[in-house]
């Protein structure tokens, strides 16, 4: 599954990049995130609950940030296991561009999913991913503006 989108965020590039490295903000913004802990400056462990089609799965996995060029871009490499529901591997490239006082965030996701997730949710993966990304960035922007995350769950 591949997904690429651009989002305009109402904050400067430095603030956006800092927030993209802030565990507390990420934790609140990620839909269904139950736990997110930094094990180093660029490594995290995460537990996320997702519902895709008929399957609800608790993913546990690791996320590593590579090719970090502050405050411009990084690539987030993650792998999560959803137990009997299957697994997901993801590589997300995030790039920031100044647009006056706001920032244009472009991301490209390449995800491989396997197991029952791929079999039963295959047709829904793309739409679900888009929806989750939308929720994430909605939350992310709200948090940057000092508000509370609006949506916490993917359901």
């Amino acid at each position, binding site marked *: 599954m591949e997904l690429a989108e651009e989002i305009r965020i109402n904050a400067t590039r430095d603030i956006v990049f800092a927030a993209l490295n802030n565990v507390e903000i990420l934790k609140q913004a990620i839909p269904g995130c139950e736990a997110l802990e930094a094990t180093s400056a660029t490594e995290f462990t995460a537990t996320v609950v997702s519902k895709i089609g008929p399957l609800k799965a608790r993913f546990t996995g690791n996320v590593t940030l590579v090719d970090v060029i502050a405050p411009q871009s990084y690539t987030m490499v993650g792998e999560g296991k959803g137990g*009997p529901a299957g697994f997901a591997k993801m590589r997300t490239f995030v790039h920031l561009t100044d647009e006056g006082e706001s920032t244009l965030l472009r991301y490209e996701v390449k995800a491989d999913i*396997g197991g029952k997730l791929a*079999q039963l949710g295959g047709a829904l993966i793309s739409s679900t991913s888009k929806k989750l990304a939308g929720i994430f960035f909605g939350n992310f922007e709200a948090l940057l503006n000092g508000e509370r995350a609006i949506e916490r769950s993917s359901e």
Partner: protein
Amino acid sequence: MASNPQKTNDSWMGSRLARKEDLRLVTGQGKYISDIVLPRMLHAVFVRSDRAHAKIVSIDTSAALALPGVVCVVTGDDIVDELRSMPQPVLLPNLPAKYPTFYPLCVGKVKFHGAPVALVIARDKYVAEDAAELVEIEYEELPVVVDPEAALEPGAPLINEDHDDNEIFSMTFTGGTTQAEHDANDKEVEEIFQNADVTIKERFRVHRTGLTPMEPRGVLCDWSDSDGLTAWITTQRPHIDRLAIIDLLDIPADKVRVIAPRDQGGGFGVKAPFFRENVIIAHMARKLGQPVRWIESRYESLMNVGQERDQINYLEVAATQDGKLLALRNRGIADNGTGETGVYWGFVMPFLGAVELPNTYTWDKADVKLRVAVTNKACLTPSRAFGHFPTRFAIERAVDMIAHKIGMEPSDLRRKNLIPHLPYTSTTGEYYDSGDFVQVWDNLMSHIDMAKFREEQQAARSEGRYIGIGFGTGVELSGMASEVLVPMENQPGYGAASVRLDPRGTALVFGGDAPGGQGHETSVAQIVASAFGIEPQDTVTTTGDTATTPFGSGTIGARGASYFMSAVHNACVEIKVKIARILAHDLGISATLDDFEFVDGQVVLRSDRSVKKSFRDIVERIIMHPINMPPGEVGGLEATVYFEAAKPMICFNADFCTVEVDIHSGEFKITKWVSSEDVGNVINPLIVDGQMHGAIVQGLSNTMFEEFIYNDQGQQLTADFENYKIANAADMPDIEVTYSPSPCPHTPLGTRGIGEGRPSSVPGALSNAICDALLPFGIEITELPLRPGAIWKKIQESQA
């Protein structure tokens, strides 16, 4: 229920008798494997790999074991020292191949999505399912190979690491046995191609598809220290399964009994291999001293079995301008999957597919080669039309492409090249024993007025409607003689039956094969009733129990009407000889079997029909009152007979269908389907009609709908019936089955077996009809499945 027609000509042979087994099957009284429940029975659930190719780093079973009700969780490492690996000799064909070594549970790594990694056994099925979800497996992924051509490239990632490449099997089928002979033959074929008026060369691709029996697999094993192992297995070959279990688990031969349940919801070849699941369930029942049962889910079934076809055939055909087929050359590449099932190992199907490539046509020369690649997919399992669905699609399409090229009616080209006289040995060495291809063809053509159809086609085209007609032919093995089955599967081909008469004048028949819905109980009863002059309800048939039946290689390869029924008949004759001798002795006359007629419950002296005795009385006299016997004769009436035909046998069919294609959407409608069959003498036309309808529907479903899809990561995406679409009644046309039989000279009743290859003339006939309809666009279909989208795309491309 419909009333049964009366028997004809004093014989039940050829009667449309309603099937004896249907009453219990349609009233819920069938007894399938899930209906067998034993005291203290435990339930097994497999934990299956969600990766296609990966090292197993660790398996954590602690959470599963902690669940109340769980008895044990076993992994590959737990059992490697407790049982033997496959292959074992009884499960190996006599064909040189790179057989993989494997255990019932994966050891070290997984090779396909769905491979069994661990087994959970619990006191309750639901607990076992829950516990299976708690088993945590850590994998380290390996490169995945899903393309058979890529798998054969030098340096491709190795799947079966006990071998140095992924080519499990390769063979040249033409020209002789030595390299020099092959080279000489190939050169001659090349010369024909160089000098031919017309040639075609095409890559024909048939997808992975096959069979989905209504009842998935199941195994129930019970162990006792005194009697050993009793294993109920959904299987087509219980006697072979028994030998395999003896060898794999090192159990004394007298301590293993395998029973195929009397009622099985279809086999179609899918239940013919020996599966790894059988071994581990039997092993655990012995180890735990408690019955253990595994019932396969539909999800598991679609992940593991019923996957076949899946070949690429680079086929070339040479012909003359007036439509004489000269030579064919084929380079087949088959996608085997892992190769991890006993008996077939995946490649035996494409092997036979290559053998059957020349089909019903005469060729001066052929050059046929096959390579079979191991990939990270489930191992191919046999599916009716064993191996030759893809090669027959290719050859039937190629014949039409030649016809299009030279501007000849495809039907005329076929008739011109049909093998005119049998017996005949094909260019790949297959023996066609008997029958009349031309007669069957002419019967088919009597159901269509070609000139009129072409007029209608022209008229329709002028209205923007596209109708077409397509043909296909097929020659099938009718059972397999030992001379075929021993080299192919290392098993005997003979049919075996025991017939035992009861003092009350009824018959008990025992057979070692294991039917799955073919109507054996009815066909057997008709043969026995005809032989003894009794009623069909007076025969009871037992199959599938190795403790009570003579050895049989299984319900496979159309062995029913050809081999098993012949053995039943011959056993009846053996008993009749004895009855006649004793009756003549009692009557004080000199007479043998030929002097008596067995009819209407009587044994009648032909020369004086007032001299007769009731069948029941003479049977009771011989079994219960064996005094005053002829010299050397003893009591009892029972015979076990092994039947081996003098020659390998075939049956034959030809089909046509008409279609209408909507060029704006690529959708098509089948408007007519007619078949012409040589099935030999028919025991029960109702059953034969059912076989033919089922086979044609299966061929259509494979051609139009069914497709097992693996993505580039080897993820199998079609593990439910929403994603693996099979035909339903509304999808199917009316099918008109017609017969043009010639009795088989090699069976005592002139019967032929019909259950095997029938679907494989379907994809060619249907594709040919669509191409005929779209002839103005010059479209030639070379790939299956036939989806409207793909047809629409071809129409668009032709107009670009």
